[in-house]
């Protein structure tokens, strides 16, 4: 039976979710960018309010107005001006814009951890005083619910009216056809700025309203806000009305279900489902919805534009850098070596992202889920508490973990076959959120777990060597996937999927296998990570970790396995040497600069180096951009074509029809 009181309480949460979703939707429709950073913006706004009220002792109302109505919109406008407008101007691929928003996300998260620390605070200022309004019939209505509902109604009406105005119509024109609208004298940049301002403001409002109902904690709050993405997916990125309806409905159902109590194991599962109904909604919506109405072309899918695209042949001796990175810890003192244990493990996890996102072009934001599952399975196998298995001794665990992960990878690969680009990114992310909420957060699954290195490798030195062996094995798999026949086919899929199909490449199977291989690698890395730190820490496999890792891989070159090793080294070193949060901040800042360094940090350095050396000492390094051509006997058609190529190179123009 439904109770009115619970339903009303649910409406409060529901309207906050709807609000966050609306902000996301508006930004997306007005700018074509799916702003993954919106959860982080909401979190930052909540922290700013806390800072102003609790530390600087501003009056609450003033602080809230300045925070939400001034700082958030200005932040949005700055984002448009300095991050997204340059990308728009050079017609960046949607994947690049997604990564840029990921960069903003990572910067805000890192910044928040750096400034406010990762610990939770319970005293987030509440905009609405706690009061119950008595309704007829003895029902109590919380004042906050009234306010939340009022805000969503006002925003909804505002947006609806805004769409009808002349400006609204012209804005729609920009969204549909940016170039066309620009020809008609409409300033597309202003419209985009408006979209960012509104989107950031709504994120801010949602964050400020949501924080008091939760604890104020950088990762946690951001993740909860991200979960409200469900609302947008249900709306298929289009309908604001559906987004609002979905938000309110999930909120109410959640409140109603909270009343039901079942006992035993299924009861615990039920409670988990209820408490995380937005996650359930996100997952279900992503699996049911056929397509998202994405803006932009259908080549939105792959990460091809983030890769080096074979621009430079890799320099000789290039392998020395990652090799040295890995060898150095063998000479470290005991304390530093303990820290360095994370490097090879993290490298394997990052390489798993290189495989799926760099080589085959499929965006996967869910590797944290695989890594965490790997750690969990390793711990349980070693303890003998894995259902269906006895105690697995020593190193055998490290063989079993990736093997057991293959079916799970295939399972996720299945929905991933048909999804591309943003849709795939969201699906993989939702997977890792679900794993985190329904597996890692369940005390019955993770409490009392101990992890430690296999017995024969108990000393740090030995374990480090074992890790290196695992990394070497991982690289063997990677080599199979990158070189030769499979490597070519993967690049073909990444560059042009329909072309690959036309060549007879069984794209579905290939994608499945890559997902499975990537999941297995991530699991191996996760298991080593947990063994090295001698603890199963769910925080280490938080879904937001997956986003940070993805950003790191993109920064260090999404299709570069050596880059992943160096990236792991840099991340671990920064974390050890600098205050908490700085490494994340650095990665985020680099991700924001990606627009200026296509192909990633290392590739750009390589190119710069190459360029400089050729300037200073021409002839010393061969021009790797143009490999020497073989001398062959040409047919007449070939001669004609080579002639034409030369002419074109001289004239600098092609004969496009």
């Amino acid at each position: 039976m439904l109770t009115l009181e619970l339903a009303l309480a649910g409406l409060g949460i529901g309207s906050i979710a709807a609000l966050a979703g609306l902000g996301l939707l508006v930004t997306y429709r007005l700018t074509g960018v799916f702003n993954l950073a919106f959860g982080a913006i909401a979190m930052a706004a909540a922290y700013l309010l806390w800072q102003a009220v609790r530390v600087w002792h501003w009056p609450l109302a003033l602080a809230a107005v300045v925070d939400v109505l001034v700082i958030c919109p200005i932040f949005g406008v700055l984002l448009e001006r300095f991050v997204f407008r340059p990308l728009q101007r050079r017609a960046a691929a949607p994947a690049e814009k997604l990564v840029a928003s990921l960069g903003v996300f990572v910067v805000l998260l890192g910044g928040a951890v750096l400034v406010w620390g990762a610990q939770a605070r319970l005293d987030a200022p509440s905009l609405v005083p706690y009061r119950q309004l008595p309704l007829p019939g003895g029902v109590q209505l919380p004042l906050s619910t009234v306010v939340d509902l009022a805000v969503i109604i006002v925003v909804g009406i505002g947006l609806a009216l805004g769409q009808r105005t002349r400006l609204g119509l012209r804005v729609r024109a920009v969204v549909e056809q940016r170039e066309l609208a620009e020809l008609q004298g409409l300033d597309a940049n202003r419209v985009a700025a408006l979209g960012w301002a509104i989107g950031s403001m709504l994120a801010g409002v949602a964050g400020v309203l949501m924080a008091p109902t939760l604890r104020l904690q950088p990762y946690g709050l951001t993740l909860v806000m991200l979960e409200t993405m469900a609302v947008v997916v249900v709306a298929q990125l289009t309908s604001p009305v559906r987004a609002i309806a979905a938000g309110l409905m999930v909120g109410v159902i959640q409140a109603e279900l909270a009343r039901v109590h079942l006992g035993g194991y299924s009861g615990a599962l039920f409670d988990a489902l209820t408490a995380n109904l937005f996650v359930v909604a996100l997952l279900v919506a992503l699996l049911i919805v056929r397509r998202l109405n994405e803006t932009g072309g259908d080549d939105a899918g792959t990460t091809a534009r983030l890769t080096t695209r074979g621009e430079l042949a890799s320099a000789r001796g290039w392998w020395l850098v990652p090799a040295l990175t890995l060898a150095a810890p063998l000479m470290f003192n005991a304390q530093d070596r303990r820290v360095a244990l994370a490097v090879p493990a993290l490298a394997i996890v990052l390489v798993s992202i290189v495989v799926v996102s760099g080589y085959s072009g499929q965006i996967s934001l869910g590797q944290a889920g695989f890594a965490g599952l790997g750690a969990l399975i390793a711990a349980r196998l070693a303890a003998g508490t894995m259902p269906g298995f006895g105690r697995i001794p020593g190193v055998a665990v490290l063989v079993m973990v990736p093997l057991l992960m293959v079916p799970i990878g295939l399972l996720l690969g299945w929905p991933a076959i048909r999804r591309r680009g943003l849709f795939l990114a969201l699906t993989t992310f939702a997977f890792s959120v679900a794993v985190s909420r329904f597996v890692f957060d369940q005390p019955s699954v993770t409490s009392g777990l101990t992890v430690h290195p296999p017995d024969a490798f108990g000393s740090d030195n030995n374990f480090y060597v074992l890790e290196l062996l695992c990394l070497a094995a991982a690289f063997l798999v990677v080599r199979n996937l990158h070189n030769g026949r499979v490597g070519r086919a993967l690049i073909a899929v990444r560059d042009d999927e329909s072309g690959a199909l036309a060549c007879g490449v069984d794209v579905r199977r290939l994608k499945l296998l890559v997902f499975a291989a990537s999941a297995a690698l991530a699991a191996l890395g996760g298991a080593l990570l947990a063994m090295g730190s001698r603890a199963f820490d769910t925080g280490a496999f938080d879904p937001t970790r997956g986003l940070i890792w993805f950003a790191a891989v993109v920064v260090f070159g999404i299709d570069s396995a050596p880059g992943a090793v160096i990236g792991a080294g840099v991340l671990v070193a920064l974390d050890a040497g600098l205050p908490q949060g700085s490494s994340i901040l650095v990665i985020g800042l680099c991700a924001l600069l990606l627009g200026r360094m296509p192909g990633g940090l290392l590739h750009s350095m390589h190119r710069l180096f190459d360029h400089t050396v050729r300037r200073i000492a021409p002839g010393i390094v061969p021009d790797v951009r143009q490999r020497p051509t073989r001398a062959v006997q040409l047919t007449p058609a070939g001669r004609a074509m080579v002639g034409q190529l030369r002419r074109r190179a001289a004239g600098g123009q092609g004969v496009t029809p």
Partner: protein
Amino acid sequence: MSTTLQALGLSKSYNDVLIVDHVDFSAEAGRITVIVGPNGAGKTTLFNCLSGVEPIDAGVVLHRGDDVTGWSPDALSRRGLARTFQRSSVFPTLTVSDNLRVAAENHGRRGILRGVVGMRDPGRRRAVRTVRTVLAELGLSAIADVRAAVLPSGTLRLVELGRALCGQPDTLLLDEPASGLDDAETEEFHQLLHRLAARELAVVMVEHDLELVDETADVVYVMDAGRVVAVGPPGDVLGRSDVQARLFGHLIDRPLDQAP
């Protein structure tokens, strides 16, 4: 003379608009079949239906007598039905020879599994040889090691054609293969088409240049608004006034009954 590819009653609609409307089509080995028709007639969509890229609403597709309706494009490609696209689908990151190599190698179920576990490809030698032959035939050997990203669009057309040939097809579907070629290249291209047809390949292509169609085609299909409105040898079909009206009516903007 044998029919390699045949379609009966093929229909396809988008948003309840029939784009391909009960089309009967067949391609004969050793012949050049050309599809002409105004923009938006549904030629590319017909290709997409034949090659399995788009699921069809009604009809049957037969390849060498077997019913292949609903097959996936990659399976059809491995069966010997190769195609090119109107918008280039060359892989820019790969070199020209690697582009061809992808098509020459076996990337079916067994092939992929063997590759992923690191087993050697038994067909490796043959693939390399095929690629070399095709490169030489198209005059692409000189740029075999150049990345496709830096090539002009006319050359990309040839690369894509070469890629289609590397699968050792019996049927070639070419969507406007001559666009972007200059006169000399077009002439070369014709010779090539005839050589291919002489090898008992069924060549099917979409082409706008009627002069060229007249010279090369054995059979012409005229499409308009999703229907095949005329079929036959170019001499018979292209001169017909109703066909001319359909092909040029859009350009000169005259009602059908007043057409010459």
